[in-house]
């Protein structure tokens, strides 16, 4: 009896294997997923509790391409794009249009209302009436000016092509270079694999520069001494992903960092020590492949995101 049970059980197991082979070969559905595809969907998700911002306003610009955004002291919004600059009030109504002939990649506004434009390898200064005030010298044949910031008498320009930050005076005289690799002073040098290289002045007057290849922020004195840095390399929502991120950043009024990334398009907020604080916009809010989400923060602490694919200025506020 025992022998029979053993034989029957063994035969059932054997036939089950045969049935499995038949089922697997003839009746299993082919896997439709591309096995070579780099799946990012899971990385696009974040903690919903951290998503404390909502989009409150968006408006289109009249420019064919848009590359940079800035805010002046009167809370007016400046957008640089193809062969021009467009100026809006805080509600998104167009106030001025300036034809610059060349296409600026970056923009800043100083305290006098002059517009500083980074046009390929040099800086130009324009007023709101569409008049060019100055054209500074070229920074070099490989220069790509991707960010400009003004602090008092100092103008800082980030050159992604030559991987350096220039410090100028108001007249365009080069005072010094910042960030060149120097082991003696522990300056690591900028790693910039893509043309996205941003800098900014925090509310307490410090110069912060993104080192995108290191996924870090570095704080420098105006003379170029490295003070501190923090980095967050991660594919997860809490960090900066890929070869080189964040692509852009701005400061909230309480000196928190607002950052944007490419690859996995997202806008987030970090504390001054690099602690991840909140999600402003998730990848689902952008077209896949969007790059150059330039940022600005106005007096009401609204976060303005320049969306170059949808050609929109998108404004986010805390819920």
């Amino acid at each position: 009896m025992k022998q029979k049970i053993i034989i029957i059980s063994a035969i059932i197991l054997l036939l089950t294997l045969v049935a499995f082979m038949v089922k697997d070969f003839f009746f299993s559905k082919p896997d439709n997923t591309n096995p070579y595809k780099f799946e990012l969907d899971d990385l696009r998700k974040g903690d919903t509790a951290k998503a404390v911002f909502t989009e409150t306003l968006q408006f289109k610009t009249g420019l064919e391409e848009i590359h940079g955004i800035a805010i002046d002291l009167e809370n007016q919004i400046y957008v640089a794009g193809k062969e021009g600059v467009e100026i809006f009030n805080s509600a998104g109504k167009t106030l001025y249009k300036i034809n610059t002939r060349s296409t600026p990649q970056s923009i800043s506004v100083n305290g006098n209302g002059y517009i500083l434009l980074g046009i390929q390898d040099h800086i130009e200064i324009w007023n709101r009436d569409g008049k060019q005030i100055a054209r500074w010298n070229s920074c070099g044949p490989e220069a790509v000016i991707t960010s400009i910031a003004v602090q008092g008498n100092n103008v800082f320009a980030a050159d992604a092509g030559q991987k350096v930050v220039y410090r100028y005076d108001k007249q365009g005289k080069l005072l010094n270079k910042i960030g060149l690799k120097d082991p003696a002073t522990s300056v690591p040098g900028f790693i910039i694999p893509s043309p996205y290289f941003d800098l900014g002045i925090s509310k307490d007057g410090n110069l912060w520069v993104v080192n995108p290849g290191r996924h870090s922020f570095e704080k420098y004195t105006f003379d170029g001494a490295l003070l501190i840095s923090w980095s967050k390399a991660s594919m997860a929502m809490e960090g900066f992903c890929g070869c080189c991120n964040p692509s852009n950043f701005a400061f909230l009024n309480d000196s928190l960092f607002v950052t944007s990334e490419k690859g996995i398009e997202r806008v987030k907020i970090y504390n001054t020590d690099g602690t991840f604080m909140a999600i402003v916009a998730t990848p689902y809010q952008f077209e896949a492949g969007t790059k150059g989400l330039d940022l600005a923060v106005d007096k009401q602490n609204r976060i303005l995101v320049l969306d170059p694919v949808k050609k929109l200025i998108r404004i986010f506020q805390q819920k």
Partner: protein
Amino acid sequence: MKKTLAIVFLVFLFAVQFMNSYAIQRFPKPEFESGYVQPETLLPNPRAEMLAILDIAVLIISLSVVSWLVIKKRNRNAVFWMSVFALAYFGFYREGCVCSIGSIQNVTLAIFDTSYLIPLSAIIFFMAPLVYTAFFGRTFCAAVCPFGAIQDLVAFSPQKLGSRLNAVLGVIPYIYLGLAVLYAATGTDFIICRYDPFVGIWRLDASFGMFIFGGILLVVGIFIARPYCRFLCPYGVLLNWTSRFSRKHITITPAECIQCRLCENSCPYDAIEMPVTTKNPEDKGTMARKLIFITILIPILMLAGGWVGSRLHEPLASVNAKVRLAKQILNPVTEKNQPETFEIEAFKSAGKQQSQAFAEASVVLHKFYIGSWILGGFIGLVFGGLIAGRMMTKHRTDYTPNKGTCLSCVRCVDYCPVKLPK
């Protein structure tokens, strides 16, 4: 000390794994040109020709040694240790490739597809065991095939299945062989390799499914000795046929059988045939009627099998990549949120016309139509042969190994009290 070494090994393993995973996740890619030149993709060198020749040499030497041990020395212990060597060399060292069982598909594909260049080792691995079997019986199964060796090691409590059950389950390898040939001939798939139960064990990287598949076979093998060899192995079918005509097959007794019955239960594979007494021999008329019946039955079964097979050619062809693609083009995925299949994406990106895909599928379907007729006819023949075997009475006076199913393991020899004088 061992524990420390194990921890260091694991830390190293995980560190390497971590570095790999970190390196993969570099997204998005850099955009600046830095003058860096991407190194050429290096492909691993093919296995040195000398090593392929070594495999062939090891196969031939193993077959020769095992055949000598089986036929001349009749030494079970030596045969057992040869099977351990086969397990180590052809199993774990050569990781189950090239293997004689799978070589059926290489040979078939080479016959039907002239563009396929079959390796010499595949031809030798296909032919050599058959040639040795033609002379010495299934000595390859005894101790050269790693599949047999691993199952032999676990056959702790083999049970007798009885001739009917053996005969019924014994049909499966024929069907498997027919399907393997059909799918290899049409360039569809190498199903023997796809469902190789032990390759994951040889390579120490079995997926969960493979591990379960191989594991269940080994568990079954505790009670039903060598279940893969007896009830699945398609190469076993060819060896079975060849072995029936072997010139020198192992015998249980080295001299005259004394009918002591000691060997009766010695074979774990139910391959010993009992003496059939001639007390009630069938008269000539009955035998003639049976012969006529079988002569009529087999062609009918073959025709019926072929017809049924031809009716099934479309389902059989549905696993072919070209047929599947054509079906997907005809019936695209329409569910919401369902992406297009990978095949459709690849087809579109290749810039091919739909008509081209349909034409290619049509050629494959025609091949399957012909192949299914032959496969069905073959299965009909197998069933006919099974019925004929059950009907025809063979007269035997001694206990003899069934030359077709005997795996030449030499177990039975030890049970025979008759010894030749040294």
